[in-house]
């Protein structure tokens, strides 16, 4: 990512904004896909693992940013102890596996960014996104590719100008995620009330920087 690169704001449905003020979507496109992780990222994962002992893991949910996402999950009908917030899911995996495991360039970059910032970031194949992404309730008759049937009315999704790309804090539509064939990656981060813009920017920047230096 060039030093001056800024993320862009995705559209959020007006009715949603009235109900859930503070909800926002920022996205950034990086001109590369995933690949093998490098030594630097693996080293950063190890350092992060060492910093995250049991006591820190227990305290995560009370930190302001993870707490804001927990509360938002409650607000939109999700149980954060069943469908964990991204940062809590990673911390739980760290506790169960004894460390943050290296998978590939993109996953390692996402892990570092999410754990460092507390802000969830997800990645899509930018060439499979039509126009600018946004957050909206699902429309009548709409579903998620790769998932049989329609989604229940009012389900919140991240969508491009043509179709839903994934559930808000949930599954990604089939064929929209990053694969080995991906040449350009779109990084998306959902902000909620209580999460400062700078934290969202930092999370996106961390992933983009790791991808571009990988």
């Amino acid at each position, binding site marked *: 990512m060039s030093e001056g690169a800024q993320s862009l704001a995705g559209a959020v449905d007006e009715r949603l904004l*009235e109900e*859930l003020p503070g909800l926002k979507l920022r996205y950034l496109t990086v001109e590369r896909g995933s690949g093998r992780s490098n030594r630097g990222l693996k080293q950063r994962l190890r350092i992060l693992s060492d910093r995250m002992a049991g006591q820190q893991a227990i305290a995560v949910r*009370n930190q302001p940013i993870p707490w804001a996402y927990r*509360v938002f999950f409650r607000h*939109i*009908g*999700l149980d954060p*102890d069943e469908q964990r917030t991204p940062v809590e899911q990673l911390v739980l995996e760290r506790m169960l596996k004894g460390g943050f495991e290296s998978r590939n360039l993109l996953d390692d970059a996402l892990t570092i960014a999410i754990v460092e910032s507390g802000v969830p970031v997800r990645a899509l194949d930018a060439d499979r996104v039509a126009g600018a992404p946004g957050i909206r309730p699902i429309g009548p008759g709409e579903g998620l590719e790769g998932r049989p049937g329609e989604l229940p009315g009012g389900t*919140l999704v991240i969508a491009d100008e043509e179709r839903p790309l994934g*559930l808000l804090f949930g599954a990604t539509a089939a064929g929209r995620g990053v694969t080995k064939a991906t040449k350009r990656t779109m990084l998306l981060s959902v902000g909620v009330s209580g999460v400062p813009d700078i934290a969202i920017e930092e999370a996106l920047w961390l992933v983009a920087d790791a991808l571009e230096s990988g």
Partner: protein
Amino acid sequence: MAALLELDPKVGGERAGFVPRAPVEDRRAARIELRRQIGKLERELGELFATTFPRSGIEWAVPAAGGPRVLGIAELERTRDALSVRLADARAEVARRADTEQANRDLVERMIADPAEHRWVRVRSEDVGDRDCKHWHSRPRWGIVGMLLGWWRVKLSSGCPLAGG
């Protein structure tokens, strides 16, 4: 708040038409207030969770309405009430355990003061709310000789086994 009792069909209510509708702004204000209350309860529950670590066996789960979607007043009320009940139950359980742990700490003091009166009694760290692995054990000095002569002492174990040991 009367508005809290109403249901909004556009955002998940089920009994629209059976109750007089409050103005849209009132209903929105009610939902915002409920969300604020949910945030406050979630924080209190999280703080209690952190302070009770490593005690296990306390129920923390709060069922969700299902989503992701914008919840109506009735669903937000149910979430708030479920959080409130869970918080009260968890506090009661923590208080009950605190009493037990204090009684066990008193027992350890009595054991140390008079080991012979507490023969073979063993108190583990978790019995007094600590997170390490040690235990206090009243046992005879020099094995059978101590037993025969009544030489008892409280032995403190050396703690947790080494990782990977």
